[in-house]
């Protein structure tokens, strides 16, 4: 779509290759993905709107306390616009959500946006670390499992991996807590920071304390989640191992381990990003569960407690924010895919 423009610019002498590298996948593709992302968020907002109003009784009734007077209740209902026509409520809801006005949380006694802003980074840290751990260990394991697939123990290794993937994350979390906290006492099993610290409040001890608290939740999710990436890479290794470039690599006299990781493995990584959506879903769900087990004060725990406490403004905003995070990460992964597979040329024109 922008091809002629780039060619002309190159003729003139502008540094087009730099620009083109960044928009390697082309403007058209990017716009399409953004449109889908936006539509997804709109659908989610609508879903939330519908779900909330589908509840038995007025949803405001959940926020009223027995001691309120009728006048107070009427004011509350007016503030929430309960008596306005549905489409007006819908429009206002959409507008508010897109401008970041998420309302007030009755249980937290604070603006929802503030609560979310505090909690989001904590979940992102856990989620990001788990993503990293799974997507480093997983593909490597997949490469090894795929390479030695027909060796003795290849099937057993696969069976063990599948069994690990089949264990519930919260159960694994409990086992890890029992081992590392109750038996060994190495790692703490609740919260994000020590409640009553006995160490000095300078950066290094605080950071270490945080990392120690992060360890078990991270391990719980990662211990199960790595298998997802392994199951994607392992079959891709099967094709890679029979390829002509692996044959040539052998003819070049390269060592088997080099061929395994650098050539077969590298090419087997391509399907990982295309199927990453499913793995992402697992990690999000895993993060929610883990936060609950370890009382990690993040978004996941927030959703669960807000829903159970019937704090609807908070619950729906938290849901929305999680959806936003997922959509954004998927978009980033789409970009990463094009860098991983060098055969994709600009924009889909060629």
């Amino acid at each position, binding site marked *: 779509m922008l091809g002629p423009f780039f060619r002309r610019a190159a003729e003139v002498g502008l540094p087009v290759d730099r620009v083109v590298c960044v928009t390697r996948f082309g403007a058209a593709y990017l716009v399409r993905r953004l449109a889908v992302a936006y539509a997804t968020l709109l659908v989610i907002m609508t*879903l939330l709107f519908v779900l909330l109003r589908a509840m038995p009784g007025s949803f405001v009734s959940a926020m009223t306390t027995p001691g309120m007077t009728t006048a107070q209740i009427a004011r509350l209902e007016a503030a929430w616009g309960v008596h306005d026509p549905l489409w007006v409520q819908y429009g206002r809801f959409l507008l508010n959500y897109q401008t970041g006005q998420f309302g007030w949380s009755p249980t937290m006694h604070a603006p929802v946006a503030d609560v979310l802003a505090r909690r989001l980074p904590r979940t992102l840290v856990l989620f990001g670390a788990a993503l990293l751990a799974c997507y480093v260990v997983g593909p490597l394991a997949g490469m090894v499992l795929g390479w030695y697939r027909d060796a003795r123990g290849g099937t057993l290794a696969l*069976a063990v991996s*599948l069994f690990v993937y*089949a264990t519930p994350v*919260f*159960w694994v979390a409990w086992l890890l807590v029992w081992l590392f906290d109750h038996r060994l006492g190495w790692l703490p099993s609740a919260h994000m920071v020590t409640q009553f610290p006995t160490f000095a409040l300078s950066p290094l001890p605080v950071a270490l304390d945080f990392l120690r608290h992060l360890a078990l939740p991270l391990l719980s999710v990662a211990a199960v989640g790595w298998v997802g990436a392994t199951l994607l890479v392992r079959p891709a290794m099967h094709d890679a191992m029979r390829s002509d470039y692996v044959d040539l690599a052998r003819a070049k006299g390269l060592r088997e381990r080099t061929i395994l990781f650098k050539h077969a493995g590298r090419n087997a990584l391509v399907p990982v990003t295309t199927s990453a959506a499913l793995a992402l879903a697992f990690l999000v769900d895993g993060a*929610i569960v883990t936060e609950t087990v370890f009382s990690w004060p993040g978004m996941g725990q927030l959703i669960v407690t807000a829903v159970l406490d019937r704090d609807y403004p908070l619950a729906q905003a938290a849901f929305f924010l*999680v959806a936003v995070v997922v959509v954004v990460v998927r978009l980033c992964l789409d970009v990463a895919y094009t860098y991983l597979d060098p055969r994709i040329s600009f924009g889909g024109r060629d």
Partner: protein
Amino acid sequence: MTGRAADCDASTASSRTHRALRRFLTNPLALVGTAVLGVVTCCALAPGVVAPHDPEWVAYVGTSDGRLTLAQSRSLPHPPAFGDPFFAPLGTTASGHGVLTELVYGARTALLVGLAAALLSSLVGVPLGLCSGYYGGWVDGVIQRVVDVLYGVPFLPFVIVLVAIRGASTTTIVLAIAATAWLNNCVVVRGTTLSIVRRTYVDAARAAGLPAHRIVARHVLPDVLPVAAVLLVQDAATAILAHATLAYLGLADVTTASWGVLLQQAQATGHVFDAPWWLLPPGLAIASLVAAFYYVGHAVEDVTDTD
């Protein structure tokens, strides 16, 4: 000529199935998976036969209406006992119910949830995927856009919200799981259908004026069915795990016996870390059943891939 071609197709199809079946029966993963599924199904179909006690059985007093002494109730949850003072090979819970009994009776819920959710998501996803791949054009476009957008809905938060609103019944959970799981079925079946439809003999059949359902039945389905079967099995696995997770979060139906509820009770009564006979078996049961589904799915994939 069409008749002969059809005969050829049918004979190769059945010999392919024969070979696939033979390979399946010699696949170690398939055997282990099927064995575990068999055991769980037995527990589900005839729990009274397999379990050592009735579900109403309580330690010390059995099925009678007696009450426990203080000393007796203090001893609960009781570690495994093999006759003295009662028979509970996996010990008891805090309320005195036998863990093994609860485990056997919980098998039914696990299987039901898994299979129901899997069947539902397949019933929605597979036909849509077939239509999307076979007809292409605007049908494909619409379905794909819908799927693309719905993919962005995070699974567990959605299920949590849905269950919180509509109440924690097993039906709701099954519906909620199926509502997000069908997407994957649709996308994968669409991919398989597309690759089959592109082959020239399908074009020829279309040009010959054969009705769509015959083309699909004869040419498309034989290749799509194994893929759909693998997806079904994976959906069942995911559903069982999701149900267990919801139970842990307190969002499952606590009146029905299930492995997840068993674990949640351990947590609710604060005995997670001092009653390993209560903590370990349900977790292992869940993992074993889910792994069995994974094994069978993997074996089916292996067996049909090499064709």
